[in-house]
């Protein structure tokens, strides 16, 4: 199994080539292939994580060539953690996508699966690689796949995708420019190598510009305010499975890259003291949190509301990075996990609602808890996690972020974090209120007492199981946060913080 780092990428990649071939013959076989490929990837990611925990970081040389000329895959705690998140959520979304795909894009399902696998390949590649340019390659693979997937969606999707395409390409170009500059001055593309060569070059203008380009490019990709403008359209109009994958995983990978660049490639000393980028990031993040939540309150469209909420949640994660202390980064990384689970569950749930009701308008969600009790229960659990009610996982990441803010003696973030809980409560409870309690006509309490209920008309199991699995995971990760932190996250925090 020593080839597992590369296998984790190759398997979805090769499968994505096979999907159109098989789909040409028999459409129904695509789905099992996709699920199988992602399942194997998930198991491999778990295996990798396990071996990182027991043996320490894994170094894998592509083709056996030595770095810095060869491409090296380097997996430590941070990578492994991200890889597990990416692969498992992709797996769950893939299970979900069969039914939702049937309804939303029936004649393009084969294309959908093919590009879906490419997207996952790109994401996993970004996560495991240790080479800067290799990361760009996978970044582009993932981004192009994402553009295509969004465009398959409904009415406004083409424009949203085009918007995202322009913005995303700008972001990727900035990243490439940054890599280029670094290569010019150091002659190396390997992250580990760079981290050793660069400290001597911190005074150089080129290096600093490269850093600025990285930050802006990645901020664009992850949707940090004010570079988030592509996000609402893209998330809203994409097919539900795609929105879920993008919101839960893609933005997190960009965050991961930012952490890598800020703290591994460039020293923490550089990022915190030499250039106070962390201060700027924390302020931007703070504004992002408030902005995202306020905008989310006024949206009538459920997915758009969730998209703006994602803008705010990315703010949380970046705030933790900006605080740049152990507690803050613990909160950040824990929130990466929690948000991936929570937003995944919420977007999948929104997709399920669209599947059954055909509408995303919040005002028309009445009586939903009778028609889809399990979906609504899962949605409620995820909403409670976003607000930060124990014992769901959202509470714990918020708790660590607050601790980080107190550690840094910056009370403004504490207030913003607590305020955002309340704002979250406003728009999530609006949905819950509508779905559970919307009055339908004249209500006299005795009609409910007499038990007049409609038939439950849940979504098919293929869609329901991922939603419930994520909801269960939300509660379990909450209860076991302590374990997760002590075994994984504690070691995933870059040294020197």
């Amino acid at each position, binding site marked *: 199994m020593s080839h597992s780092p590369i296998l984790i990428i190759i398997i979805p990649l090769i499968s994505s080539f096979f999907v159109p071939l098989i789909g040409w013959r028999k459409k129904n076989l695509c789905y099992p292939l996709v699920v199988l490929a992602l399942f194997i990837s998930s198991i491999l990611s778990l295996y990798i994580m396990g071996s990182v925990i027991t043996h320490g970081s894994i170094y894998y040389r592509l083709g056996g060539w030595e770095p810095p000329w060869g491409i090296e895959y380097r997996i430590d705690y941070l990578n492994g953690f991200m890889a597990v998140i990416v692969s498992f959520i992709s797996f769950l979304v893939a299970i979900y996508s069969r039914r939702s795909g049937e309804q939303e894009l029936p004649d393009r399902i084969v294309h959908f699966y093919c590009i879906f696998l490419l997207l996952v390949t790109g994401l996993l590649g970004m996560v495991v690689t240790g080479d800067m340019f290799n990361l760009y390659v996978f970044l582009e693979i993932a981004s192009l796949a994402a553009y295509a997937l969004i465009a398959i969606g409904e009415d406004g999707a083409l424009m949203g995708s085009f918007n995202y395409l322009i913005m995303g390409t700008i972001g990727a170009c900035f990243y490439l420019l940054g890599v280029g500059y670094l290569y010019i001055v150091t002659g190396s593309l390997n992250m580990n190598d760079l981290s050793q060569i660069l400290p001597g070059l911190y005074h150089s203008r080129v290096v600093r510009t490269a850093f600025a380009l990285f930050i802006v490019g990645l901020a664009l990709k992850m949707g940090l305010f*004010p570079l988030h*403008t592509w996000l609402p359209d893209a998330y809203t109009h994409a097919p539900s499975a795609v929105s879920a994958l993008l919101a839960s995983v893609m933005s997190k990978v960009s965050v991961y890259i930012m952490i890598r660049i800020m703290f591994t490639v460039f020293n923490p000393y550089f990022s915190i003291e030499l250039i106070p980028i962390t201060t700027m990031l924390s302020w931007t993040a703070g504004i992002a949190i408030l902005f995202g939540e306020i905008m989310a309150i006024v949206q009538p469209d459920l997915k758009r509301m969730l998209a703006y909420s994602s803008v705010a949640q990315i703010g949380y994660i970046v705030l933790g990075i900006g605080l740049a202390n152990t507690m803050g980064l613990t909160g950040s990384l824990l929130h990466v996990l929690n948000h991936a689970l929570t937003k995944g569950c919420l977007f999948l749930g929104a997709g399920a609602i669209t599947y059954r009701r055909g509408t995303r308008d919040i005002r028309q969600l009445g009586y939903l808890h009778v028609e889809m009790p399990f979906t609504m229960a899962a949605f409620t659990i995820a909403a409670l996690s976003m607000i930060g009610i124990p014992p769901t996982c959202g509470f714990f990441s918020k708790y660590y972020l607050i601790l980080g803010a107190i550690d840094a003696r910056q009370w403004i973030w504490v207030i913003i974090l607590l305020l955002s809980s*309340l704002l979250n409560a406003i728009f999530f409870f609006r949905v819950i209120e509508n779905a559970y309690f919307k009055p339908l006509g004249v209500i006299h309490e005795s009609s409910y007492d007499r038990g007049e209920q409609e038939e439950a008309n849940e979504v098919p199991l293929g869609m329901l199981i991922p939603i419930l699995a994520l909801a269960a995971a939300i509660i379990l990760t909450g209860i076991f946060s302590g374990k997760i932190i002590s075994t994984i996250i504690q070691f995933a925090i870059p040294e020197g913080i």
Partner: protein
Amino acid sequence: MIKPLPPAAIFILGALLIPLARTKRLKQLILLLVPAVAFLDLLYMSHGIYWIYPFLGYELVLGKVDKLSMCFGYIFVIVAFLGMIYAIHVKEDGQHIATFFHIGSSLGVVFAGDLFTLLIFWEIMAVSGVFLIWYQRDKAALDAGFRYILVHLFGGSCLLAGIIIHVVNRGAIEFGPIEYEGLSSQLILIAFIINAAVPPLHAWLTDAYPEGTVTGSVFLTAFVTKSAVYVLARAFPGVELLMWLGAVMAVYGVVFAVLENDIRRLLAYHIVSQVGYMVCGVGIGGEMAIDGATAHAFCHILYKALLFMGAGAVIYTTGKKKLNQLEGIGLYKKMPITLTLYMIGAFSISGVPFFNGFISKSMVVSAAALKHEPVIELMLYLASIGTFLHTGLKLPYYTFFGRPSEKGEIEAKEPPFNMLLAMGLTSFLCILIGCYPKILYDILPYPVDYHPYTPDHVIGAIQLLLLTGAAFWLYIDKLRGEPTITLDTDWFYRKPAKAFLWLCDIPLNNFRLTVQDFLSKAVGFLTELSKNPYTAPTVLVLSTQISITKALNGLRGQPYPDKVVELKKKLKGINGIIYIENRYKNPLALNISLVLIFLLLCTLFV
């Protein structure tokens, strides 16, 4: 010997079992069995600290069992059982699940031995409580529930902030007496006070309790405020601020109750008043006062549940909940049993001898006297007068009696048997404890050296009651219900909240659209330009020409009349596009400009 379970766990597990029960009988059996099992569990628990779980480097203690927590535990489970009998006819599972979560989490709060456990159960209690309000499903309930959850989440945030600061400063998370100084203890106190409904933070209670379901409100009254009293007694005994807050609360509640028209809101103001006694007792400190507060909590849960059951029965059978609607329809003929049982509750709350209010209320008042706080004692005494006036006289008179009006009599009958049974059992307990106070005194935290049935106490009480009654008769007409509402401190956040939401919606959106509009027009112009670069200068010249000539008031002969008209139309075309959020076609301008600005900032920084 079976190791006892945390009682909170019993209720939460019970909540999860409810949807699994398929038949109605089985469901009802579960509903009654769970509190019974919990009661047995309580009997098995002995004092000490149990159920310790390591978490995040600290130790969570789920079971801090001593006399104080056991006393609250007992009454919570008892009222859970009685309330379940009352609510057993409700078919909607969700209501029962929410109720069990609510009861379970309150038990969790009562037995919490450390601050984290407290926080977790506190939040669950808030969220489950809001569902009980929402299940009423009318607009008032939905809105009130929304405000309820926001106020409670605010309180939860204060609690979280306070606990975190406390933990960071002190490093320990044990839940015990907290010194009242410094930011952390103030935050925690604020959070506790919100839940105890101390004015000015009490408005959620009077707003939300009257709007809940008939059966749900019975549960609501018992748990949130009393668990707040428990935590206050545990953490802040003897804090003088509480003494004054409590006394003010007691009088505040009755003053507002004079003006109330909705029968349950009137009772809700009395909750504020009675909890004032308890908060005052906690503030006075010392053994008798804490005993008094606890005893009063115990009795209050019983008689308040009874009162809400009675009021709920009236609402259930008549569909009306306002005094001005209920007056004069002669309910006393149609619902005599309800009236009687309600009056038992009313006598209890007023402190009539042989009912349970008498033995607990006077304990707190005497504690105030013993501590030489004359003003406090008089204030509490005044509140007693007000309580009898409204709960004991005004409310039953105008609900069940009243001058016969022209409206005639409406159809009403006694409520279903389960409701009557629940009310009957609760009344029985009220009278039992009232006549035989030793049962209660034995489970109080500190040894009781108080004898309520002394001649002067009894005579004093009788005098008070009779003369209050006289005052009532004098003013009987002035006290009838009017269809008004009373402004309370929630005005401060209801009015601004509306403004805030309006602000988010209209101006911000408009602002954004205007900016987008402007930039999109700019881009549109540029695209037009790039479509046909050779005519661009002409267009520019011509459009300036047009505007100039127009401005000079009068169109002279244009060199290219058709072209000008055509260009005018084109220009109009560019300028006339309206942009809606989902449909704008050229958002890139906004995005790209933001990117450039951000890049500039980054480079400047770097």
